């Protein structure tokens, strides 16, 4: 089942400076929202606030009517079991000799109680997602021996075995070649079409947002500059304000490419 997310008057302060200020952000169940913006606009911070990794200095973050911001660590952790999170590459240790299957099985950890080991049914589910993402032949290989694109597939499988109500992805295509970028984009697109799960996806490159990403949240200096249907946001002048240069968005084969406007 998809989940609803609601942020209201959220402020994050660092060294006395407000780095994120979200007046109001409503993500109804089944929404696929892309979060875009310049470097330092607050995209990753917003994602971490949404999954309760960063507690706001002010405001409420409601996850299915429960305010994450006022919960204690134990209850917050229990609620987060329904969040599938795929971080940027720098946030996981890819050098350890975990097998691919071990990494995917990590997704079942929070599903089971603290002292309860994983069961046969958990591993059946793990193998189901390994098969589904085309990794069957590599299940006993180590994670560290896989290519960046394959590692990203494994992390998607790890998030999906959790059976999450909401999926949060932080630039899943970064550091990948363009073939892999589009493969990962297509996998996310398929997942959304098949499950209608709520998805929040941060991306620097607009062309990497899957076709089914119907809503765009544009952040600028820690605030929402534009929020609406993808076509409207890309057609507005908000992108030019955020990137401080003349930009245009062109659509090629269903992908939206945003680039500096040509002078010719």
């Amino acid at each position: 089942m998809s989940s609803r997310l609601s942020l209201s008057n959220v402020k994050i302060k660092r060294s006395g400076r407000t780095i994120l200020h979200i007046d109001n952000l409503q993500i109804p169940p089944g929404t696929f929202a892309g979060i875009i913006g310049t470097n330092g606009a607050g995209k990753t911070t917003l994602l971490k606030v949404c999954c309760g990794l960063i507690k706001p200095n002010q405001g409420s973050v409601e996850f299915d009517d429960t305010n994450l911001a006022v919960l204690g660590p134990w209850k917050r952790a229990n609620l987060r079991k329904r969040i599938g999170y795929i971080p940027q590459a720098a946030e996981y240790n890819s050098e350890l000799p975990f097998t691919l299957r071990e990494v995917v099985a990590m997704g079942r950890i929070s599903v089971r109680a603290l002292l309860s080991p994983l069961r046969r049914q958990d591993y059946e589910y793990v193998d189901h997602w390994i098969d589904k993402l085309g990794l069957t032949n590599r299940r006993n290989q180590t994670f560290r021996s896989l290519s960046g694109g394959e590692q990203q597939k494994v992390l998607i499988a790890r998030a999906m075995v959790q059976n999450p109500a909401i999926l949060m992805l932080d630039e899943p295509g970064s550091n990948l070649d363009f073939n892999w970028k589009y493969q990962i984009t297509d996998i996310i697109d398929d997942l959304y079409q098949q499950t209608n799960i709520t998805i929040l996806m941060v991306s620097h490159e607009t062309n990497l947002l899957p076709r089914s990403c119907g809503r765009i949240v544009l952040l600028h200096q820690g605030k929402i500059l534009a929020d609406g249907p993808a076509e409207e946001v890309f057609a507005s002048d908000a992108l030019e304000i955020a990137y401080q240069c003349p930009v245009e968005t062109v659509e090629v084969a269903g992908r939206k490419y945003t680039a500096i406007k040509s002078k010719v």
Partner: protein
Amino acid sequence: MDSFFYLVMFAGAVAGASTGLLGVYIVGMRMPFIGTCISHAAMAGIIFASLLGIENPIWGAVAASVITSMSLAAIRPEKSRLDTNVGLAILFSLMLGLTFLGMGLVQDSRSEVLGLLWGSILFVRQRTAVIITVMALTLAAFTIVFNKEMKVLLFSRSIAAATGVHESFVYCLFLALCGLTLSVNLKMIGGLMIFSLITNPAAAAYQICRGHKSVVLTATLLGMLSTVIGFLISFYSKKLPTGACVVIVSSAIFAIAAIYRHIAGKED
């Protein structure tokens, strides 16, 4: 062979196994410095407990190492802008300062205090063997009971935290056990030397193993081998410090593992 020999070998094997097992997590979390930091805290604890006239100064080591471990657990990189390793370095320098301050204040038995740095099998008593065995069994039980949580903590604390694993709780428990294990093994292995016994067997296992279970078993075994061989050398030489022998053996084991991986071209 007298009973003291067997007692030393047994204690050494258990100490090696438990530090080797600890190393899997400490090396995997990329914070090998924790061994030096906690062992220096334990040394400072023993010295100050002696100065205060506490009957069994090991309690000073236990208290100091657990407090240091908990201070480390309190460092949240995303909030404090302080990397765990930088926090470790700061705590380490403080503990080093306290250790030397205490050593300066000790009037008698300075050689015994210095012995804490290098370790000695002469410190092994039946009671020591019982304590380190109980501690090793507790650590083993922890790694079995919290196996799934520790795996995801090793892989990514961010993922663990974001997806509802009680990572702070498990991490705190682990660090507390870390402090306890290191403090009970301190007199035998030595504060300066215990660092490499944590790092080398685990680093060797990470070189040659595939899969978490295989790393855990191999690091435990290599830790055991390091201490047993190191103790044998120390025992028969009658004058070589235990800690130094153990360190050299564990370094040699790491070198062999690295060379093996290179020569065998071991594929993952």
